[in-house]
Every structure is written in C-alpha cells, then in structure tokens.
C-alpha cells in the first residue's frame, strides 16, 4: 500500500512538473527557442504571486487573476523587445541571451526580495486532504494536477482548433510563407511567449504554495521541465504531462527507497528513457 501511495503522490507531483514544462514545450514548438531562463521565470511568477498576496491580501489562487496577465505582458514585451532579435539560423544566440536573462532575473529577485526562503500562505488548502480508500490525498496536489490537465487540454484545443493555433503552427512550419498569409511572425512569436509565460505564472504560483522558494531555485525547475518535455517527446503536449508524471513517480519511488535518492531517481529515469527512446515516448503526433 505504501508503494501505491508513492505512485499516486508521484503522479500528482507530475502535474506540477507538467506545468513547469508546458510553457517550455510551447515556446520550443512554435519558434524553436530553447529558453534557459524558463526556471527563473517560474520563480519570478512565484514572487509576483507573493507580492500580490501580501499587497492586496488575496489568496494565492485568486492572485492568478493578476499574475497571469502580468506575466503574459512581460512575455510579449520580452519577445518583441529582445528575443525576436536573437532568432535566426544560428541556435546559439537565443541560448546565450536567455542564459544571460536567467542571471539577470535571479539577481534582480535577490536584490528585491533577498535570499531568504519565502512561501505563500494558502490557508486551509495547504493541509486539506481527501481520503480514497486507505489513501489520503492532499487537496493541493490534486488541485495542481487538475489545473495541469485543464491547462494542457486548453493549450491542445487552442493549438488545433483556433485560428491563433493555426497561425502558431503555420509560422512554426515556414516563417516566410506565413508572412505571405499576412501573419507578422514577430507578433505571433510575441503572442506565443505571452501564452507560455501565462502558463508559467500558474506553475510559479502552484510551486510557491507547495514549497518554499528563493531566487536560486530556478535552475532545478528548468531541469525538471526539460526532462518532462523530453521524456514525453518534443512538441507533444499530452506527452509532456505523461513525462511529468513519469518524472514525479520516479522521484517519489526513489525517495521511498532512500530519501537521498529522490532527485537521482528522477534523473536516472530520464536518462534511461533517453537511452531507449531518444525522441521521447510520444514524439510529435499530428492530429
């Protein structure tokens, strides 16, 4: 039963990892941009959530109403102002620029909020639980997992059923021809980054309710996000959720064997899958 519990808890943790990964996957899918600053943007989302909850006295979940649009706006400006200039045939400039961005965000957070670990207070939500048989599930992980499913289903719907999604796919396929259709790729990329950072804001707030955070933890979240994306298969959003779940389950099972093995077990699972299926479990499937 303990093992069943570990698998279930790991699955729910996977929801959080899928939220880390969804924005990363979206950005890579639309503009082939590998965003090294993604983890720090998640942490930025958590800090913005913290500021909103303390300044306005809102519950962290309610703070999403402010933080999601704020992060989306930051994303659009970031893309139009800086990242669009780095995109081209060479893949190195976006890597270098987002790496620099990562350093800048970390230090700006350090200056503003200090290095002390912070946590958002979500009141009863943090400790509430539901019992299913002999399993006891925290309400917060269940909620996080539910949000991850809703976010991924919405992104999937947006990608394959709306004119914006069509524009994203067309621009990703062939930027020049997309321009001929009257699509300004700089604007389309701005919208993609806005959407990605909107999702990142949700990830940051769920992270900030679950655990304490400080400005230096972005790198670790980036790794989890990358691993989830790659396990699932690049460009496949549902695969990203499954990738997150596999990573989460591997971590909780590792922790069950020995608490020191939590992170190691996750990385080992990732490496094994990478060795066996270099393209991930579910490489891009066109509907």
């Amino acid at each position, binding site marked *: 039963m303990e093992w069943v519990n570990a698998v279930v808890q790991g699955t729910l943790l996977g929801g959080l990892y899928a939220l880390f990964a969804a924005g990363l996957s979206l950005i890579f899918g639309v503009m082939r941009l590998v965003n090294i600053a993604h983890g720090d943007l998640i942490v930025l989302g958590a800090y913005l959530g913290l500021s909103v909850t303390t300044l306005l006295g809102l519950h962290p979940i309610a703070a999403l109403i402010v933080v999601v649009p704020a992060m989306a706006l930051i994303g659009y400006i970031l893309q139009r102002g800086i990242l669009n200039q780095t995109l081209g045939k060479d893949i190195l400039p976006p890597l270098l620029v987002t790496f620099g961005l990562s350093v800048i965000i970390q230090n700006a957070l350090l200056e503003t909020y200090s290095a002390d670990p912070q946590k958002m207070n979500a009141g009863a939500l943090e400790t509430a639980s539901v019992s299913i048989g002999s399993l006891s599930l925290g309400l917060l992980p269940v909620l996080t997992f539910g949000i991850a499913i809703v976010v991924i289903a919405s992104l999937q719907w947006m990608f394959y059923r709306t004119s914006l999604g*069509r524009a994203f796919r067309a621009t990703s396929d062939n930027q020049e021809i997309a321009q001929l*259709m*009257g699509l300004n790729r700089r604007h389309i990329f701005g919208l993609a980054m806005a959407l990605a950072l909107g999702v990142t804001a949700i990830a940051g707030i769920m992270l900030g309710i679950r655990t304490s955070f400080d400005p230096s933890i972005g790198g670790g979240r980036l790794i989890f996000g990358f691993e989830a994306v790659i396990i699932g298969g690049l460009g496949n959003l549902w695969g990203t959720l499954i990738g997150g779940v596999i990573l989460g389950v591997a971590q909780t099972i590792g922790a069950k064997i020995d608490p020191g093995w939590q992170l190691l077990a996750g990385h080992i699972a990732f490496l094994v899958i990478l060795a066996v299926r270099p393209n991930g479990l579910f490489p891009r499937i066109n509907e």
Partner: protein
Amino acid sequence: MPEPILKLNSLDAFYGDFQALYGVDLEVSEGEVLAIIGANGAGKTTLMRSISGLTQNASDMVKYRGGSIGALRADQVAAQGIALVPEGRQLFPSLSVEENLMIGGQMGRKGPWSLKAVYTLFPILQERRNQQSTSLSGGQQQMVAIGRALMANPDLILFDEISLGLAPIIIKDIYAALPGIIGEGMSALIVEQDITKALSVSSRFYCLQEGRVSLNGASATAAREDISRAYFGVE
C-alpha cells in the same frame, strides 16, 4: 491606358549578396495578365520576392496603387492585396488542406473567394479537406497553393512557376482553371518557363535575362526568334 496597379521603377534587387535584378521597369494594368519569362537564374523568383515583400528594397522601387511598398514586410504587402503562389507550393505540413486554405483567408479581406468558391473551382479539395496537405499529389498540392492565395481575395496575384514539377495533364488542368480565377477583375503576374503556356494566357510579356528586361511586348504578336534571342542571349 488605365492607371497601372503595379509599377516597378528601376528595381535593383539582391539574392543574398548577389545582385539579381538591375534596373527593372515594369507595369501591370488593372485586370491585366502579365507573363514573366526567362531562363533559370534570370531573376524571376527574385522579382516575385521583391514584389511580395519577402525581399525588401528601396521603398519607391515598387509602387502599388500609387503607394510605395518596396520596403514593406511581406505581411504588410499581403494586407494590401497582393498574394503569391510560391514556387514549389510550400504548403504548411502541420495544417490540413482546409486549414491551409483558411489561413490564406485569415486577413479577412472582402471579395468573391471563400472556402466554398475554392471548393467549387477544385472539387477534389473538398473531398480531401481533412487530410494532411503533404499527403496530396503534386497537382492537388498546387491547387491548395492557388486556393490559399485566392482566399486572401487579392487584387494582384503572383504565380511563381506553377507548372514546375507537375505532369503535363495536370498543367493543362491548372491552366484551364486560370481564366476562371483571373476573370474576376484580378490582375496577375505569371512566372513560367514554358513560353508557349505563358504567352497563351497573358496579354503582354516581359523577358528577363541576367537580371535585366531583354524584351517586352504583346503576347499575341511576339516573334519566336526575338524571344529566343531575348531568352538565351544569343545573337
């Protein structure tokens, strides 16, 4: 003579670092079909790219309806009513046939062309509407590429090598459909290597040779010897 819809004023254009066009002057009148002929490397595709904004030039080198569009981006040029059927079709592989057509119409310009009108012109596309565009035959892909450009309801449509790589029977079908396409008062520029085809659908032609206009005139009265000379540059 009516006011030209498109006018090139001594257009110099580059293909990468290489100058592909030297002082090209050209006019398209409202409703006119113009053929551009020339050998490989004569600058035909660069000409298409320059008009559609994929290659940006000095602003007043390309005039459209009196405005200078030479320096505009391709999406801005498209919004003004110029559509390009690119060489090699270049459909979006991630999009279905119908989505390829719909994205062509995403600017919402008013006009006679809609999904329904395109399906009436090319009924086979309606049958195949939910397929991946890359699963179609070359001729059907060309129909999608033409339909996609028409969906923008352009005033000027550019065809770049629409018969390249297609079977003769398909080429015949596509050329048979052309009058129905251009009949609606649309102006057209047709780039074509098949000189006979190009002259048969156009009222006037321009021949390019090594980036310069080597001959132009009325398609009906063009002498083959003159064209050969202008095309190949042999005396």
